[in-house]
């Protein structure tokens, strides 16, 4: 099913070429790569290294420093549970435990069927709705462990793409 990673689509290459001349471009380019592929594939990192003329070691050094960059292919649906203080106080850890119980996937992991990846993320700034989680960017607020099964079901049953 996987599309070939290379060559990179023109949208991506033209972005990289546009940024090539700007100093300090690496992080912006990595964001764009991750936005397109969902992660930073090794082959693409090699290609980026060639175009930007930045050593591959440095690209890995920078990418591994920041939480947002990932070298692992994410699941089809991305669940992100906010672990900001307000959410933590209001039981965000229980949500992570419940998600693990339902789909067998802990924070930072991809489920065995590659349908879900789960992440514990930093404050997403909706503290009024704590505890909060997002699935593919859609926000669910004031969630309790009891709600979890109902929230995940449509994604599990492929009712949502």
């Amino acid at each position, binding site marked *: 099913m996987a599309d070939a990673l290379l060559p990179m689509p023109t949208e991506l290459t033209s972005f990289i070429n546009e940024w090539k001349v700007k100093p300090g471009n690496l992080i912006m380019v990595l964001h764009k790569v991750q936005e397109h592929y969902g992660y930073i594939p090794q082959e693409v990192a090699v290609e980026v290294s060639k175009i930007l003329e930045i050593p591959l070691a440095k690209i890995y050094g920078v990418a591994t420093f920041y939480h947002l960059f990932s070298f692992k292919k994410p699941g089809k649906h991305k669940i992100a549970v906010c*672990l900001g203080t307000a959410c933590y*106080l209001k039981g965000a850890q229980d949500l992570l435990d419940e998600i693990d119980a339902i789909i067998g996937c802990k924070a930072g992991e991809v489920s065995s069927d590659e349908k879900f990846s789960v992440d514990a993320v*930093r*404050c997403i700034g909706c503290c009024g709705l704590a505890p909060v989680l997002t699935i593919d960017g859609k926000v669910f607020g004031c969630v309790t462990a009891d709600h979890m099964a109902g929230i995940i079901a449509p994604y599990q049953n492929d009712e949502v793409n």
Partner: protein
Amino acid sequence: MAYKNYCLVCAGTGCHANTGEEIYQELVKKARDLGVEKDVQVVKTGCFGFCEKGPIVKILPEEAFYVHVKPSDAEELIKEHIIKGRMVNRLLYKEDDKKTDTQGKIDDIKFYQKQLRIVLRNCGFINPEDIEEYIGREGYQALAKALTDMTPDQIVEEIKKSGLRGRGGAGFPTWMKWNFSKQSSSDVKYVVCNADEGDPGAYMDRSTIEGDPHSIIEAMTIAAKAIGASQGFVYIRAEYQLAVQRLEIATKQAREYGVLGKDIFGTGFDFDLEIRLGAGAFVCGEETALLASIEGERGIPKPRPPFPAVKGLWGKPTVINNVETYACVPMIILKGGEWFASIGTEKSKGTKVFALTGKIKNSGLVEVPMGTTLRDIIFAIGGGIKDGKKFKAVQTGGPSGGVLTTEKLDTPIDFDNLVAAGSMMGSGGMIVMDEEDCIVDIVRFYLDFSVDESCGKCSPCRIGGRKILNILDKIAEGKGEMDDIKKIKEISEAMKRSSLCALGQTTPNPALSLINFFYDELLAHIQDKKCPAGKCKNLLSFSIVRNTCIGCGLCAKKCPVNAITAEDCEPLPGKKKPPFVIDGKKCIKCGECIAACKFKSVVKL
């Protein structure tokens, strides 16, 4: 007014995420379907601040404040309020005591009464995606004044008079930073905005940019004029997509209107902005780390001096201020430094925005004059603790701050008082805890955060934080010893003295406030092996009160590990069945039994 009514829909993060966009679409559609699109303009605005009650819709000129609005309410709002001129009582905000009839008007709402909005002056009033609305509220007038009527010295002097101090945490006088950069001679200088708001539980910078992006652009341009820079960068968290998007729209519009870019206001002054995304590293809130990140490097702090004001981005003089600090600047230039200095306390001028969250009734963003007491913020504005529970503590300053108790509630908040009280201002997160929150648990949460975010460059931070966390884990597991308290103090002292940047220097703060202000609770964990708040699972035991248990067995049915069985005895007097009992060895302390029991017979000890 061109329209009879203006319908403002909150498009701040919380409301936007909570069907705000659908409400907006629905209102526009219904207004059109019902033929009143010429009478009412539906506008998306920035955060109203009262996030607890979201999604919020405000209708002008009546100032009707509608709360918890759903997309399906749109038709009723248009039909009743817009067409018939009758407020929809059902959706109007009502105070909890139900005695005060606010009619939904903002001025009558207790949450807003003690607030003074300077930073958030436009949030919730204007459409952040339309520069005309910003201009309509004195926008870019300060820039015009700074560029045409003021010299760089006069600008710095005005900021000096205002007494403005950096809102990012440390409270360094803003004018001094500007002055250092101004005095450094260099062909290239930079102005940077720190929008890498990483404090868990703080979202004022995000809301400011989302609700009023032009105020940041205007302020940065003023700073550029003061120091002689022509290029600026806004470093913003990539997670803040909506804020990034609004900022992009705002910079584009500002260029079209000639208030950003070449020859601003025809004065020959050039300044332009670029947005750079963060990638999830808390340490990048530290200014030297932030600059490294803009340069495309790992966000690792550098020793200071040299300070960025002298040698910053790519080695050039660079002014870095936080979003909230910039948001104050246009008003200071326009109304004068003395006006700003008239608000606040002796050493902390102006207002401060706090993100009030946790176990508080009215979660939201509040902006108050410096010197307001914690009690006013938590009880008068925040409405006190949720669900009738007791106030226990308030955490300020995020992972670098401390936890304050009831005794400190009457402290007038400013930079220096908070430090004296044993915490700090930080970026303005204010997390309220009730009697069910365990301070050991919370402090572990913060240490875990700081350890995870340590960049690893200097050993006091890298090793010290981990050591303190290990000790706290041990205490929470019931294996703590009295000697541990001494160890935490020693490690903290070393970290404070020898860490390279503020992250390492402040990592021990939450642990120190645990020792200083919650000594009894800490002792309970260490000596009695008990968690008074009932949070630390290893220190808990569950048991069933024999004489109130009716023997229904619901708890046993719910228990996932079959740890609960009926006691092998006769029913107690007045009961039909024998009571149940929990086997402590099997119990996993999940709490299902407590939830199941209708007679409150299962208790945590």
